[in-house]
């Protein structure tokens, strides 16, 4: 592994149970349904890099965010952070590591405790690392709020007194207050209006540059992901189907899903109305994913092989790969 790699994920799998089959039910042999939320996801994140993850709802991208930071334990697979395997770390050590890898959540309303003041919310990760010096905490919180563009009188106020964009700034301040190296952004602007989204995106870009952050930017909004990311990974039904530099994928996507996904994005230009490349059907249920290539029921180029054999990652171009049988034909 090169020293350029900050975080490396190998074969990450996350399955979880759905429905509450009671203790007795389990005894009597009720089958528990399993959601295949992540099925063998692997990638590296280099230092100073922003990796974008894009996919439709239910493709597992939020599970990826939570599993990557071990907010929920993976079913299997490994996560290496700064050359250290972290999935098996004892709880105490993991807690110490948390200040170095942080997350910004999608919902600016429910991600802030309604009964806490902004200064306590933002100070939370400092409390987490055991910072006791109150003056020190106050100073760091103040500096960070200024950095995200909030005035000092925000300190003593409560989350509901802020607009959506400001709340997201509070969430960003909380994530950055203990100077992490790595940041996961889980749909950070999806709940915001266009004009506010632009403010937050520009703020994030500036902070990533100034603080030399590595990040994973997750969103269903393809325009936003592409704008923010150096490389992107396209997820479908719990798997990454294609991954590579943003521009290269935009120019020459290799997986049929990527192609249709990008073609579905409205162009914000009435003179270029979308060609009628319409993708049929909907994403499969993660409880019962299709055999072989998970995209095969919707794929316009489906072959016999796709129905039974899971396609391997195939290199298209240096660090651009896709998982599709068309490439190995």
């Amino acid at each position, binding site marked *: 592994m090169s020293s350029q790699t900050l975080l490396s994920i190998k074969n990450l799998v996350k399955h979880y149970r759905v429905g509450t089959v009671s203790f007795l039910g389990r005894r009597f042999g009720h089958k528990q349904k399993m959601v295949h939320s992540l099925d063998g996801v692997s990638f590296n994140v280099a230092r100073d890099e922003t990796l974008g993850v894009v996919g439709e709802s239910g493709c597992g991208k939020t599970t990826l965010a939570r599993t990557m930071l071990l907010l929920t334990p993976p079913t299997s697979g490994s996560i290496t952070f700064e050359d250290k395997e972290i999935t098996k770390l004892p709880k105490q050590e993991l807690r110490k590591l948390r200040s170095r890898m942080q997350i910004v959540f999608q919902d600016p309303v429910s991600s802030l405790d309604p009964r806490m003041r902004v200064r306590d919310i933002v100070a939370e990760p400092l409390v987490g690392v055991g910072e006791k010096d109150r003056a020190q905490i106050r100073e760091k919180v103040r500096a960070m709020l200024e950095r995200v563009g909030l005035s000092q009188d925000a300190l003593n106020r409560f989350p509901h007194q802020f607009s959506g964009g400001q709340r997201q700034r509070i969430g960003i301040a909380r994530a950055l207050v203990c100077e992490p190296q790595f940041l996961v952004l889980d749909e950070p602007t999806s709940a915001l209006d266009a004009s506010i989204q*632009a403010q937050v995106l520009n703020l994030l870009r500036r902070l990533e540059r100034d603080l030399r952050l590595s990040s994973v930017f997750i969103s269903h909004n393809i325009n936003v992901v592409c704008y923010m990311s150096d490389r992107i990974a396209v997820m479908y039904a719990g798997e990454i189907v294609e991954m590579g530099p943003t*521009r290269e994928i935009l120019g020459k996507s290799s997986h049929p899903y990527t192609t249709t*996904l*990008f073609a579905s994005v409205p162009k*914000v230009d009435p003179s270029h109305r979308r060609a009628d490349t319409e993708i049929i059907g909907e994403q499969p249920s993660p409880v019962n994913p299709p055999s072989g290539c998970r995209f095969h029921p919707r794929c316009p180029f489906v072959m016999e092989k796709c129905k039974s054999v899971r396609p391997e990652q195939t290199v298209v171009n240096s660090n651009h790969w896709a998982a599709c049988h068309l490439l190995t034909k």
Partner: protein
Amino acid sequence: MSEPLLSIENVRLEFNTEQGTVHALRGVDLSVGKNEVVGLVGESGCGKTVLGLAVLGLNPMPPARLLDGSQILFQGRNLAELTPHELALVRGTGISMIFQEPATSLNPVFTIGDQISESIRLRIQRQRNEDKSTPSSSEIDEQVYEALRLVRIADPERIARRYPHELSGGMKQRAMIAMAMAAKPSLLIADEPTTALDVTIQAQILRLMRDLMNEVKTSILFITHDLGVIAEIADRVAVMYAGHIVEEAPVGQLFAEPLHPYTQGLLASLPRLSDLDREIKQLPGSVPDAINPPSGCSFHPRCEFAREECRTESPKLKELKVGHKVACYLY
């Protein structure tokens, strides 16, 4: 332009809350012509949904109330003055509406077929002056299947027997559209119909709506916050900000040559796949508070061109070019 189908004139609407009076609509003028798709675009809280609901009298009143002088002219009548019962008779067959969340907008305890057949029966009931015969239930069923086929549902017999929770989001939205179209309205108000859907499904629904327009000749008032969607579907666009229409133009012109600083700012704030190198621009500040809107032009606190008169007086919508109106003192 020929006589518009729907003509909204000087509509003002307020509602009272604990915190004070919300000035949701502050004198809106907008018209929808026959066989036209009018896009109404704006950010959350600008009043676009309230306007859509106001046309059908669906804002809960109280607390909402239309102020005197508000006119919503449709088929020669002012909807703002109708009694609740008269208004109910216009809904469905005259103007119908579909909503953002197909999951909560369909009644969970009735089958899709039941809910569509209600619209069909309603239409037949209201047409009965001409035709005295009552259709049998098998005829109604056939029409339900027809309505489902119209929205490209391949196996209508099966889907009609399903309950909403048994369908996916995209299918639910198709069923909603089928239900609205089954009454054969002259105008369909679509309030963010694709916002809750994934982008591939959104593309399917947008294409469906465009096809339906051509097949059954319904006008659409399409409400959304998404300029991309507007670019895909609308013929004409109205941009709303803080309870006002600030700009209105044919779709091509609006995107090529936006006049209002707000429209310009909005367009510049969107990241685009076609132009990733461009740094997106941001509008400063946030959406104004509808309880205490700014004086004068509501946009002036965020506007880089704001002048003295912008702070005191509210600009009127002026037609600068044919079909291109803007409310701004720059022009």
